[in-house]
């Protein structure tokens, strides 16, 4: 059986569609490998104990908490982070709608939400609001109050289906 101890270990995996090779100590989590060794700071650390969802990435297309995955477990697998969501053609529809609707406020939880929402829409292009809430239940946000996040996911889902969606209007009873 292959055995790894204190020395740095080399592994290869696919990161945002490209093959990468990286060497790190075996106790490092994927989160630390991404942030410290690969300088990809888009994946956030919020609690490091699997309680907040800010560090969510996709491993082989499925969301996982990178703070609870050893970097070594990524070997041979495909990892996607927020840095890989946009294409040369532009932002991913979810990125667009999160930016447009105000689903990103302080922005710290946003990358985790984006990746989990992407996983949801890949499996379910027309999620109900309840399904969105359930899929995103492990992602905590302290700023937005979540409503704008639901709307951003619904709007992106509609656009990805080639439809448009009218978001509820909000009112300022005002001066002009």
């Amino acid at each position, binding site marked *: 059986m292959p055995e790894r101890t204190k020395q740095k270990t080399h592994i290869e995996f696919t990161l945002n569609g490209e093959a990468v090779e990286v060497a790190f100590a075996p106790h490092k989590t994927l989160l630390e490998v991404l942030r410290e060794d690969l300088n990809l700071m888009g994946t956030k650390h919020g609690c490091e104990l699997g309680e*907040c969802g800010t560090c969510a990435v996709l491993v082989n297309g499925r969301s996982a908490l990178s703070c609870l995955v050893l970097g070594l477990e990524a070997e041979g697998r495909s990892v996607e982070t927020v840095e890989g969501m946009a294409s040369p053609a532009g932002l991913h529809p979810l990125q667009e709608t999160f930016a447009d609707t105000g689903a990103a406020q302080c922005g710290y939880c946003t990358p985790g939400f984006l990746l989990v929402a992407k996983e949801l829409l890949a499996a379910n292009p027309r999620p109900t609001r309840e399904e969105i*809430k359930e899929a995103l239940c492990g992602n905590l946000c302290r700023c937005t109050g979540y409503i704008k996040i639901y709307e951003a996911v619904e709007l992106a889902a509609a656009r990805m289906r080639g439809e448009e969606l009218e978001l509820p209007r909000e009112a300022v009873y005002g001066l002009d």
Partner: protein
Amino acid sequence: MARYIGKEMSRVDGVAKVTGRAKYAAEFRAPNLAYGFIVLGTMAKGRIREIDTREAERAPGVVRVFTHLNAPKLGPKASTEYAPPRNTREQDKSFRALQSDRIYFNMQPVALVVAETYEQARYAARLVRVSYDTERHTTDTEAVRGSARAPSQGSPPKPRGNPEAAMKAAPVRVEAEYRIPVEHHNSMEPHAAVAAWEGDKLTIFDKTQDVYGVRAHLATSFGVPEENVQVVSPYVGGAFGASLRPNYYPALTAMAARELKRPIKVVYTRTQMFTGHGYRPYTIQKIALGAEASGKLTAMIHQAVHNTSAFEEFNDNTTGFTRQVYACPNLLAPTMIVATDLPTPTWMRAPGAVSGMFALECAMDELAYALKIDPLELRLINYAETDPESGRPWSSKALRECYRLGAEKFGWKDRKFEPRSMRDGRLLVGWGTATGVWGAFQRPAIARITLRPDGTAHVTSATSDIGPGTYTVMTMIAAEYLGLEIERVKFELGDTKFPRAPAQGGSQTTSSVGSAVHGAALAVGAKLLTLANQDASSPLKGATASDVEMLDGRLRLKSDPSKSVSVAGVMRLNNLSEVTETFESRPSPERQKYATMAHGAQFVEVKVDPDIGHVRVTRAIEVTACGKIINPKASHSQEIGGVVWGIGMALQEATEIDHRYGRIMNPNLQHYHVPVNADVHEVETLFVEEDDKVVNPLGVKGMGELGMVGIPAAIANAVFHATGKRVRELPITPDKLL
């Protein structure tokens, strides 16, 4: 007609945030960076008898272990602008790490382990051995409430009228006691600093709401001039008050960096956040309300006691707003504090106001039931047409319209008065209402604008954007008054190389910094006018600064836009590559003639499962009147966030302390519950704009705090309406409703 102000604008920093490019404090790198990990103590009060770092020092990668034995002493700390009370500049007694063997609270830092990697530092931190001489501690506010005293600073507010006698004489009285546990902000981003020295010059990347405050603190801590310290904080992943004061870690980080002559990064773990900054204090409130049978209030006695630390006073002025909410001739509303062996509390979203209004607005609901008057009607009966405290007129107050609009949207007229009278199948339905209040604060702030001939502008002010959309709103204001397309304006903040701005707290940023940006833009126009009128043929001859405006590269007469000059042309003629103006805005003396406050009305529906005690907030309508709304998109989002904070406070949030050990037992997000997606259903936020030229030139008031102020009370009132059970101790968890 405004081009940007009042229009929906997406965040200018939105793309940076959705692509992972926005850089938060811990994400700055420096060559040869080493990592510090904080070791926390394990008892609540006493002294460190012995601290053994030998094993930690031998661990792989460890560079140094700092303790009180080898850490240099930090100089006295100047208080920050936002320090209580009333901006006094006396010496700050806030906690600083590793300065002595004294233990003031459990989970106090006792060592900092610095190593080549984060994991090495974290591992070695486990190897530090500490023994203590313990002393008897007190962390239970209930146990010591009898020794509560008035805060030593500021004169205690005098009673209004004769509250005791009026209370005795009141035909209808209610009296009750309410409790709020310790709560923690729990922003998603943990606090972090990266510090690097070059000689006597320090650069520090910090998560802060107040770069200038951190700068002053570090300058005095290390005995260097303020100009030698640069504090950088471009993005903050939420803070909610937890980064208003310089916490202990920036000085600790900078100290290690100075001693080791290399850059150091320190990041709090989630657990360390629970004693690494303050918290909403444990608050006990006793309220008595006296009224005539008509509902007219005749006496209010609202007494609050909350804890502070043993080494420092903190007072969140729990009862402050009670004096200004309802018209009542007789009132007593002191806030008292009592020392506990816990860290010092601090401001947490809507500090004081949300706590005080929870008690007051629940008590008003209790009074409504004692009187058999509709709770909303009771509030209207006691509507304060002028400020009950000062007697001054309001600069603006559209609260009545908030009540009316909210009631209409919510369908309040269909509410049945009796508790337990509304149902949805098995579920008990409850409708509750409450009033929200916050100030319309403004503080001095400075902004600088550089306008270039190519029609681009660079705008700076050292404020912060912890999430509300400050980057965006300042860009909008600058673009509006410079008459530029918004894409041509770049606003920067969060850096002491920019002009001074107050801390981002107390919902005063748009009023303070926005006024400075507005003023700087007008100053640019005035400067251009002066330059233009040096030319004898200027079509603007005779015009004064207030007669002109800028639009799309031209400076023109407001009254006759056909009379204009080219901005680029004026600069060219004067051989200028740019025009830069710095403007300091200050609160107008006119404000002294008025009382200035922001108001709101909240309407909440809960559905309670009577079998298992689960409460769902199925509908919330919040109507707020906080002056002019500059960016409705960000503003709605901000208020929704406030509502959800209210849901958390009402139903979930509590920091649990085992008083035997004086130790926080749920310093994590698995046991400290904040609302999740599934807790949030329909939330609608509405604004009733107010035309208020008194508060500041933009007519804006605070809204970030306001959004949550009335919500916990409205929810608790709705729970009473649903169940007939009055829960006076937050949070309202299922076990309290069985």
